[in-house]
């Protein structure tokens, strides 16, 4: 291992055993079945215990690889982003790297002290005061008391909780709680820092402050591994990135390129479908982008989306589409059926199909994803399919006079219709 490599990972794998309820199984009907099943399960659990295996729920056990064959190297002082969809293995990778859990295969070599920040406020005790929790949390994250004492004022100032230092944290507002927790973590000074999705807390003002602090940390030559779904933050902080997909390393290298291949991975989904679930709440079973056409007015572009929803009984719902740009930032929201007296979004029993039309005239050229959601009008959400659809707004859709405005100019994704006039 050469001296400027901080982390070297070879062929890393981590497997878990997961249980299923076998599908051919009949429903619980007679008491006899229930007893027979319980006796069988007791026998199996006892067998498991004597052979030292953990108890797995369900009657079919399957080995599941959360990480498989992952190899990469991180140079000292690099700030590396780790991206991927939910369940791609990002958090497992961090847990293995920070020694919380043992790998099943492969080898990791680490040069330097590792501190991991997988959650803000790990170990905070609600009964203790803010002051006491700073010391407690600091020690849990690996700081010595002397270290915490020298940084104490800085931490308190960063968290903006001076007045409540001697109040038990169970009386804190959730914002104060999170600020205090992040403030402690932000003042850690290990050689290698492993961070999981912790910037997604607090209000936007505080998030900005956190991002600034992270930049600071990165600037001080520390090695940082940073997991986030906030692609803009990854792009801003990390020069290089890793893309995980279903437990494997799908791409690595310069952040821009890795983020682009992540966007590609999510692409190719102009339609989405799944079989109806046996749940009672209405849910989306199919959705597809029909086309993008010219509207009646000039320069008007309309996106047509077909959505099929399944419901166990007739009801009136709100169907909405959340639009995100290729950096994953939400840029708009189209709720349909909520603001009218008699909602047009009426579900019958079984499946109902709708055609939604969205005016996308003001969007910049580029890729977008759609999250389809069903909820009670202006109320609780029943179902959400995150980023299940995507569409590409190309220049062919803008043949008109207006000069096409592009997403990759990095000035945003919405073009405002605006006018200007001269006043004296």
């Amino acid at each position: 291992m050469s001296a400027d490599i901080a982390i070297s990972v070879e062929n890393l794998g981590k497997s878990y055993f997961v249980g299923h309820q076998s599908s051919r199984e009949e429903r619980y009907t007679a008491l006899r079945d229930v007893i027979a099943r319980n006796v069988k399960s007791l026998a199996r659990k006892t067998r498991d215990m004597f052979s030292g295996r953990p108890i797995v729920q369900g009657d079919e056990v399957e080995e599941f690889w959360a990480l498989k064959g992952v190899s990469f190297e991180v140079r000292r002082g690099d700030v590396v982003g780790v991206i991927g969809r939910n369940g791609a293995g990002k958090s497992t990778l961090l847990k293995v790297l920070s020694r919380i859990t043992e790998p099943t295969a492969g080898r990791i070599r680490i040069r330097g002290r590792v501190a991991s920040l997988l959650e803000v406020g790990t170990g905070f005790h609600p009964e203790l005061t803010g002051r006491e929790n700073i010391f407690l949390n600091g020690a849990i994250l690996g700081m010595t008391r002397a270290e915490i004492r020298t940084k104490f004022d800085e931490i308190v100032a960063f968290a903006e909780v001076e007045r409540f230092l001697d109040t038990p944290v169970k009386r804190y507002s959730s914002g104060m709680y999170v600020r205090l927790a992040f403030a402690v973590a932000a003042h850690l000074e290990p050689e290698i820092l492993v961070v999981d999705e912790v910037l997604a807390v607090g209000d936007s003002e505080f998030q900005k402050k956190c991002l600034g602090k992270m930049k600071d940390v990165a600037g001080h030559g520390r090695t940082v591994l940073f997991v986030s779904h906030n692609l803009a933050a990854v792009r801003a902080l990390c020069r290089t990135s890793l893309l995980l997909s279903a437990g494997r390393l799908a791409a690595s290298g310069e952040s821009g390129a890795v983020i682009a291949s992540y966007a590609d991975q999510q692409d190719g989904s102009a339609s989405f479908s799944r079989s109806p679930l046996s749940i009672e709440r209405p849910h989306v079973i199919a959705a597809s982008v029909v086309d993008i056409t010219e509207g009646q007015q000039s320069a008007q572009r309309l996106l047509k989306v077909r959505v099929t929803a399944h419901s166990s009984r007739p009801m009136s719902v709100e169907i909405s589409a959340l639009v995100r740009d290729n950096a994953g930032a939400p840029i708009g929201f189209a709720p349909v059926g909520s603001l009218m007296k008699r909602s047009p979004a009426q579900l019958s029993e079984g499946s109902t199909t709708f055609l939604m039309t969205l005016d996308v005239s003001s969007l910049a050229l580029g890729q977008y994803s759609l999250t389809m959601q069903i909820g009670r009008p202006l109320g609780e959400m029943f179902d959400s399919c995150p980023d299940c659809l995507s569409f590409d707004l190309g220049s062919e859709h803008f043949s008109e006079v207006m000069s096409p405005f592009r997403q990759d100019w990095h000035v945003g994704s919405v073009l405002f219709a605006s006018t200007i006039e001269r006043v004296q």
Partner: protein
Amino acid sequence: MSASQPEVLVIEPGIADRHYWQDLWRFRELFYVLAWRDIAVRYKQTIIGVAWALIRPFLTMIVFTIVFGRLAKLPTEGAVPYALMVFAGLLPWQFFSTALSESSASLIGNANLISKVYFPRLIVPTAAVVVSFVDFLISFVILIALLAWYRFLPGWHIVTLPLFVLMAFLASLGPGLWITALNVKYRDFRYVIPFIVQFGLYVSPVGFSSSVVPEEWRLLYSLNPVVGVIDGFRWAILGRQSTLYLPGFLLSCGVIVFFLWLGIRQFRGMEKTFADLV
């Protein structure tokens, strides 16, 4: 760049950590802090607070003195007042039983820490035992008051008391480690502990002197490690009035060492899977 190269840490499946005991020392601050946290929280939002640590053993002593001393008319040791004899046994018993229950529940109770941060897990149950030690020290006040009340002056044996405190500590730590590790995997053990503690109160010589046990059963009786601990305490506090049954005492020590070995072995063997199972 800095001249000193930090050491390379290798993580591989199934390889025992070479630096484990060194790490344990490095994380000693965490040990203090966790123990301090549990102590600080123990009597928060109670009215009489620490007095709880005094009231419970005191009332138990009165009940035991009446039931075993007055009603059952069991003999005391030498000419020692019965209440004093009971309390000298109650003190280590309370320490042992709270330490055992606290340490065996400790890993589950700190599940959020275990799944989010690395540290040698041995810290958690050990810190839990230390917490019960504080209660033990507080109830010591009652012992001193009792000694003064009965005008009883302990002999030179009292200087050996710390040795027996250590013995009580190890006696609870061994099974505690064993059960807390198993508890992570099989939650059945959570129901075993209250039972052991309740049961143990009657099979250990807490309310009576171990000299009432017939001579031929004495050695077998000492398989219970608490017997050795309690006898040791009585010998140290009550002095010549109490006699230490040496073969039994050594057997108790052996049982304690065995459980300690078993507990550490079980704990170390399962430690790396805690985060996945808890």
